[in-house]
């Protein structure tokens, strides 16, 4: 019934708009309820599926992301944090989607490029660079942050080519293992390059990292809004994330339909045939690595500015697999799939599992008895929030067995990772 409703433009628009409004009010009324916020997110999903004129849909999306979400973020700061994290992972998933989904090169060390981007701003946007060059020229002026968004692209793309060059000859699972090794090498380097010259400050990490400048403080004051950094920064970072995600989606869509995207898909389907048709394998594969990496690089810069602190713990193999799980859940090679997958997995980890943890804690503290078993005796080590790996693992196994093409499959089926034929 709902499907029939969503297929007709007018009722669909009304339904989605009503749901969005209702859930927004719901969150405003009960800011601490994760379930209500989940319903709000569900309405956003319905918005995607509902059939309505493109202009209406665009307006509704703009209102939801541009007004409703920031509004909810000011009510409960944690929801803003979730939205920012979702954005970061969407951009990462879209980047990995190019390498794995389009070009068919399974990259298990993707987080390395994220790390490269994050460290590039972390080192120069904090006093850390003084340890390398001497003097006291650093941290750089906050304005440099915007330059570093592009420096991150360049450095990560360079790292992508550096990884791509030696592995060009490898295929399939061997390629996967080498990229895994590369990811680990980058992490171990970050962990140990605090001597002989202190580049990364080792496991202690780098802090404080500069944040982007609030250049719009004066107009805000003129409008009578207090530019308090604690309030402004979450909204500001959210806006930046939206911009980057928007640029990423745009770049992905343009790439997918360009001759480059077609060349990637040709390589994925059949490398030999692609070469015979005149696709320059070396250049296209390197381009895939560089493009995929560059998105991770720029989000890395943003990530380090958001966290004010980076250390190697943020760039483990688990993160690479997390991003992989996102695009596999959504559907490899599919842009809406990557976005949906990233959102679902991030929300699951940050919101649902955390919520379960809090709920268990409350039960434990309340000490209610169920069937003669006092819940106060629940083991304290039992924390659902810590079981991200189990989530990733289940997603990977179940999707591979039951739906390898993902929830929102790409238009063109493919052989390397999809069904034969």
């Amino acid at each position, binding site marked *: 019934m709902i499907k029939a409703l969503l297929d007709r433009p007018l009722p669909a628009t009304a339904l989605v708009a009503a749901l969005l409004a209702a859930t927004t009010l719901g969150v405003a009324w009960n800011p601490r309820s994760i379930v209500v916020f989940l319903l709000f997110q569900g309405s956003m999903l319905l918005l995607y599926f509902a059939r309505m004129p493109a202009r209406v849909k665009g307006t509704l999306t703009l209102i939801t992301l541009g007004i409703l979400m920031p509004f909810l973020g000011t009510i409960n700061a944690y929801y803003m944090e979730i939205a920012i994290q979702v954005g970061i992972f969407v951009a990462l998933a879209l980047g990995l989607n190019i390498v794995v989904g389009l070009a068919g090169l399974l990259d298990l060390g993707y987080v390395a490029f994220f790390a490269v981007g994050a460290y590039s701003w972390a080192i120069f946007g904090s006093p850390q660079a003084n340890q390398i060059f001497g003097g006291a020229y650093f941290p750089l002026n906050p304005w440099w942050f915007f330059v570093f968004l592009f420096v991150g692209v360049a450095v990560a793309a360079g790292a992508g080519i550096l990884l791509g060059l030696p592995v060009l000859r490898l295929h399939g699972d061997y390629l996967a293992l080498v990229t895994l090794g590369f990811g680990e090498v980058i992490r171990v*380097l970050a962990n*140990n390059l605090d001597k002989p010259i202190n580049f990364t400050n080792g496991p202690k990490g780098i802090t404080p990292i500069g944040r982007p400048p609030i250049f719009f403080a004066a107009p805000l004051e003129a409008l009578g809004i207090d530019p308090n950094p604690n309030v402004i920064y979450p909204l500001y970072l959210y806006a930046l994330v939206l911009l980057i995600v928007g640029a990423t989606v745009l770049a992905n869509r343009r790439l997918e339909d360009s001759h480059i995207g077609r060349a990637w898909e040709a390589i994925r389907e059949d490398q030999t045939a692609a070469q015979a048709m005149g696709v320059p394998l070396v250049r296209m594969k390197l381009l895939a690595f560089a493009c995929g990496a560059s998105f991770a690089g720029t989000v890395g810069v943003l990530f380090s500015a958001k966290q004010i602190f980076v250390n190697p713990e943020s760039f483990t193999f688990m993160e690479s697999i997390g991003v992989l799980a996102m695009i596999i859940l959504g559907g490899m090679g599919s842009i809406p799939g990557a976005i949906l997958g990233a959102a679902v997995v991030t929300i699951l980890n940050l919101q649902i599992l955390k919520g379960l943890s809090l709920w268990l804690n409350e039960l434990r503290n309340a000490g209610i008895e169920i069937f003669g078993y006092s819940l106060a005796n629940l083991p*304290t080590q039992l924390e659902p929030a810590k079981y991200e790996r189990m989530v990733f693992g289940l997603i990977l196994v179940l999707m591979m067995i039951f739906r390898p093409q993902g929830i929102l499959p790409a238009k063109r089926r493919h052989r390397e990772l999809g069904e034969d034929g």
Partner: protein
Amino acid sequence: MDLEILIGIFPQVLLDGIILGFMYALIALGYTMVYGVLEFINFAHSEIFIIGAFVGVEILLTFKSAGWLDVMPWVLVLLIVLVAGMVVSGTVAVVVERTAYRPLRSAPRLIPLISAIGVSFFLQDAIRLFESLWRNSFNLVYPTMDVLNGRFELTETIDVSVKSLVVIVAALVMLWGLHTLVNRTKVGKAIRAVAEDQAAASLMGINVNRIISLTFLIGGAMGGGAGVLFGVQYSLINPYTGFIPGLKAFTAAVLGGIGNIPGAMLGGLVLGLLEAFAASYLSLLTGGAFGAEYKDIFAFSILILILIFRPKGLLGEVVRERA
């Protein structure tokens, strides 16, 4: 003076390298046997390995709390623990194959690999969940046994702990057992036949599915045994401990030539020795600039270099390419 230190620690480093090497060899067998029959990297093997270590620690802790640990002969205790670890790990490996790999056997190559990564992650947290519920702690320490901590002095500077000897002897027995099984028995012949050509093997009346299960059982058992020995040797384990040794054992398997059983043994030993020497000599040779913490990079670099320049490994045949 430096040279004196370098020579002085040599025998100790050699011994450490051999122990590490046997450990890698035992784990590498699981990777290489499965690759031999299915051409598939069983990514979850590192967790099969650490499950063995957890079975071992659970049994030892139970014995300890029952007060049996000091009464029972230590050889018997070790034997029980080793066999239990092998049985459980082998069984888990078979179950994993049935549920997560068999439905994907005809799928394109990357599909089972991704599934295996998923299994690996799932098992890590499954162990954690179990231990959290059972003991409310998932960082476990092997109980000490006095006999195992004894040391033989070979010379003034070099001594060997009983523990290390036990590990070496147990590893040798397991490797010898596997070698005999694969080369001298009918079952072994069937395994080799399936690895050579599945279709032909099944025409010869071999039940291919059973042999594949058996391969997982044997490989898993070797891994589980290695897990117990790992726990005895290094004491501290947690659900995530298995990952790095697993990856290095895979490196060892590739180094020796993946799919090749003697190759895995050789690769394990070579990698163990290289790593032990890198860990102790790197810092001495570079004046402390690069220390033992780079030994992981060292192993991964070997993996990357081997895969790029000699993917068939030291003893391997050319790996066939499959779409």
